[in-house]
């Protein structure tokens, strides 16, 4: 008898519809108010996304206050890298005691963004920045280094300029 009544009166379906209906009405009535707690989605391409301070993006080299490259070519990052995407060639510069990299190649297409290189660096000369829109049309765009005008190890690269948020 109880089972029969259960089949006849769809209480379970009513409960489910009530739940979804409540959620829908809450969001519907507060639409276009960005700070309401119910809104869980982000309007990402239009509104820049908020990243955590520890976010692991693209590898970048740092310079000190005098504009000198901090890297001293200890090759720790090259050794620890699990996918071997870093290649360093060291050279000398007048008026500098330590070595200076003449070439610092970073093959981003194979990078897995594990941050082991930054961890191994004893001179705080590299960081992972917050750039995450890293799509490109050409494979060469992923080769980032210190030489040439397209290769930029120090700032945000042109890689990823195709995304919606970078326009205008």
């Amino acid at each position, binding site marked *: 008898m109880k089972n029969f009544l259960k*089949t006849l009166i*769809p*209480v*379970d*379906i009513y*409960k*489910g519809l009530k*739940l*979804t209906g409540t959620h829908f009405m809450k969001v519907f009535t507060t639409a276009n108010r960005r700070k309401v707690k119910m809104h*869980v989605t982000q309007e990402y391409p239009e509104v820049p996304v908020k*990243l*955590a*301070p*520890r*976010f*692991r993006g693209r590898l970048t080299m740092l310079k000190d206050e005098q504009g000198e490259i901090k890297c001293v070519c200890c090759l720790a990052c090259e050794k*620890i890298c*699990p996918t071997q995407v870093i290649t360093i060639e060291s050279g000398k510069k007048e008026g500098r005691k330590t070595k200076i990299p003449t070439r610092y190649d970073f093959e981003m297409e194979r990078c*897995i*963004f*594990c*941050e*082991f290189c930054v*961890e191994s660096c004893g001179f705080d000369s590299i960081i*992972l920045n917050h750039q995450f829109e890293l799509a490109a049309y050409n494979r060469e765009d992923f080769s980032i280094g210190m030489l040439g005008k397209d290769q930029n190890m120090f700032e945000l690269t042109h890689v990823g300029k195709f995304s919606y948020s970078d326009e205008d």
Partner: protein
Amino acid sequence: MFKNEEMEINMGPQHPSTHGVLRLKLRLDGEVVTKCTPCIGYLHRGVEKICENKTFFQGQVWTDRMDYTSAVANNLGWAEAIEKLFGITVPRRALYIRTMLNEFNRLASHLIWLATHGLDIGAMTVFIYTFREREAILDIFEAFCGSRLTTTAFRIGGLREDLPPGMEKMVRNFLATFPDCMNEYETLLSENRIWKKRTVGVGILKAEDAIAMGVTGPVLRAAGVSYDIRKAFPYAAYSEMDFEVPTRTEADTYARYLVRLEEMRQSARIIQQCIDGLPEGPVMAKLPKVLRSEVNEVYHATEAPKGELGYYLVGEKGSVNPYRFHVRAPGFINLQALPKMIEGGLVADVIATIGTLDVVLGEIDR
């Protein structure tokens, strides 16, 4: 004109309900499955062999990519196996944080399971709601280690960094809202007549069969066997935590659904205990610069969201990389119970059974 002939069809590897690249060779008699052969290996990357050629530090990044829905649990097993191999003692604060993140990962993995399992059977709403909570968990991962999916969260000997400022508030906010969310899933599914029709009595795997095939995790616990590595062989800080191991005796898809839901509640309990009783102190043990192993071997099992995740490592004298590395992947072992569960059932139940096993092909093929 009409012949009674058995038909062989392929389900997958591009079928949307096979959760990746799982291919099933099904022999059908009408709509009844008479034989099922899972074909795996489409996502094989040779993780075990790669790790043998990498140092102990580097190998961790490949464990992220095995079971990509529970990367933190994989990291934990790897880090603890190597700590066991070298006899490193991890500070207590690091153990607590590891336990907390591992439980968050269990929640994330079970939430994505619930979402896709519901979606396969036809309950789409729950997908939207579970991903809302999963987003909050991934934000916590991002705040802690900078990445959402491939976390590389732990280091050998402890953690890379302490909890970031504001993390405790994030965790507490999550715990405050999570029980209500659990009630929402229950409202949508537990008593739903369609859900019950699709899951009750489907894909039964009896306890003796499950034990004979080495099946672990929620699938085993739904058959009435109370076996949980967290209780049986405590690791990390689980010996200090107060939680229960939920079991059911029906051994069907609905029982496994209830077991996983109860596990999520217990996980929230463990996180609460971790964040309340977080001890002070360092998070990293003192380590030598290069880890060189002796001739020894170690097997370390952890309770990943899907079952017993075991790492087997063999060391070589003076070597910086393992001589042999083997993963006992829970999904791989659980998958061999699939033919037993679906033979004699209907084709439509195959979908429900794959969903309930919670297969992730990245882990099965490795």
